[in-house]
């Protein structure tokens, strides 16, 4: 893992001003993405994953508004850039985004080839014949059979998997350094999912790009990502490497998500009780406390601080704080090893 930080989000808050009140969609999100990694962002529907993605491109739609925070991309704050600057220098050139429903994300009245060619002409200053040639190459690169034929067809003539490949080709055409994939496989069936993911992985390593993969499927993350961030109701509850998150989850929400993955037939699936809270009136303190099995009085009052578990592994939960304090007391009693080293047995 390269240690160069490509994208850093600091205390990002996004509100949506609706008739019912202010929806606090992002409640101070912190996130670091290193160059060349595959970062997964996991969480339930409505927890703010997609809002985070659109905030990075400064494309939060009305009535949404970025209230505060910093988005540092290559050490430059995107939120301080003008709309024109971000459009001309960032979107398309440095950061692109793959959408959830590939067929809806392609213009229905322009044929596939022309859409990619247009992106090339607009962003790479190519002339038309160059762009057409490159389009065919790109389509070949995303394993589309008969690229010349597909280039002439229109989006509605493609299957979901094909359309997503065309989309990937289009978004990689400008050679961005960060690719945001907003649930790229959700609309596809399982066998195609695996194909698209492995294709994405191959292409990314080939183009040396970084990926922010947004999904609600932890198994997708486990398969492809190097690090994961778990979001809940606008809060980042846990960040760590895939290994740390899967094998040593600290936050009860992460644990719940992992228990809910169908892995072994003999094991019964455990659901997380309740549903996502209404973000107009979010729960006080830790936003997860009404659904948590280990709620303590303090959870209802205060927002938990982000705590370091191990290197690269952080979580925001009072449970961890407590167990760590207990542990360090024990360690003080015995031999002090310095700092917290993780492993909790409380949950």
């Amino acid at each position: 893992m390269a240690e160069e930080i490509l994208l850093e989000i600091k205390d990002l808050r996004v509100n949506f001003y609706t008739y019912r009140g202010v929806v606090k969609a992002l409640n101070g999100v912190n996130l670091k993405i290193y160059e060349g990694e595959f970062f997964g962002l996991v969480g339930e529907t409505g927890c703010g994953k997609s809002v985070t993605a659109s905030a990075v491109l400064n494309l939060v739609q009305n009535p949404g508004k970025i209230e505060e925070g910093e988005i540092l991309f290559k050490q430059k704050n995107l939120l301080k850039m003008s709309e024109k600057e971000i459009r001309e220098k960032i979107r398309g050139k440095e950061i692109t985004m793959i959408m959830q429903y590939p067929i809806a994300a392609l213009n229905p009245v322009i044929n596939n080839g022309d859409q990619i060619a247009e992106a090339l002409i607009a962003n790479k200053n190519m002339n038309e014949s160059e762009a057409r040639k490159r389009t065919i190459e790109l389509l070949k690169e995303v394993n589309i059979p008969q690229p010349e034929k597909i280039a002439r067809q229109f989006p509605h003539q493609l299957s979901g998997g094909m359309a997503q490949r065309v989309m990937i080709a289009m978004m990689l055409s400008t050679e961005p350094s960060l690719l945001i994939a907003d649930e790229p496989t959700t609309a596809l069936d399982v066998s195609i999912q695996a194909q698209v993911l492995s294709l994405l992985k191959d292409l990314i390593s080939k183009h040396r790009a970084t990926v922010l993969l947004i999904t609600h499927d932890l198994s997708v993350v486990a398969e492809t990502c190097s690090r994961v961030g778990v979001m809940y109701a606008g809060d980042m509850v846990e960040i760590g490497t895939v290994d740390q998150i899967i094998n040593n989850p600290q936050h009860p929400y992460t644990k719940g998500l992992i228990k809910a993955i169908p892995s072994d037939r003999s094991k019964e699936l455990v659901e997380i009780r309740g549903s996502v809270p209404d973000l107009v009136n979010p729960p006080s303190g830790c936003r997860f406390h009404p659904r948590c099995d280990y709620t303590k009085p303090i959870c209802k009052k205060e927002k938990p601080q982000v705590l370091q578990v191990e290197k690269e592994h952080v979580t925001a939960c009072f449970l961890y704080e407590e167990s760590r304090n207990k542990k360090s007391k024990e360690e003080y009693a015995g031999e002090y090893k310095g700092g917290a080293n993780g492993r909790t047995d409380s949950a």
Partner: protein
Amino acid sequence: MVSNLAKENLQNWIVSWGKRHSSEISDFKETVYLIKKSPLTMVGLAVILILIIMAIFAPYIAPYDPVAMHLDNRLAPPSKAHLLGTDELGRDILSRIIYGAGVALKIVLIVLAIDLPLGILLGLAAGYFGGWIDEIIMRIADIFMAFPRLILAMAIGTALGPSLRNTMIAIALTMWPVYARLARGETLSIKERTFIEAERALGTSNFRILVFNILPICVSTLIVRATLDMGNIIRIAAGMSFLGLGAQPPTPDWGLMVSTGRNFLINQWWVPTFPGFAILLAVFGFNLLGDGIRDISDPYLRRGRQ
């Protein structure tokens, strides 16, 4: 040798053109098939085609000069020499109707050539940018739409002075709000769709999004609306000519012919009746064709596409 090579090149080019545009060609074939299946559209299309042929080839088709007066042969009833009779100045009515087709089509084309671009431009801007741009454009459009179209056209026509050119300007000024509203409505719904978001994520400029992504989708709706309006334009133009605001004599304009012929309705019925029929047929033809095009361009009708 050389000509053979050229021939081969041409053949190759035709084959490759066909391959490159295979989807457009199959689309076109389907359109033809759908038109053939709808007899009313065929009738409308035939009427319009006849109208166009009349307009283009008027000098070759018309048996007489439309403005040549023969005072010795005034108000002659339909006969072999004058199929539709002659008017109060001895001019052949059939010839005048044939030349009149050109005048009518000219009005339609010029009005649409002003209104479609104007409506599209204003509608796209209003719908896409919203805010005060939208507010200003749409409130002005509302003012124009607050008056009955014919009355407003008459008022503008009177203010500008009676002539064919001013009639066209007057009609164009009353029609643009329709297209602006339509384009705005389409833009409002299209700009929320995912592919526009995808374009934004690609850093496409507003101008490119409007021209390359929104416009092509709007255009089909606007063209359907324009074909439906062609009949209206002919009707309004005829109405204005009838009132003396449009074409001036001796222009062979249908409305004008009905207007001057109405004095002879009782005794020489053919003088106003045949130009009236011409207006009726043309409006009818445009309406049938417009309805047909609307049905054909409906994507739900188009099945079995690969």
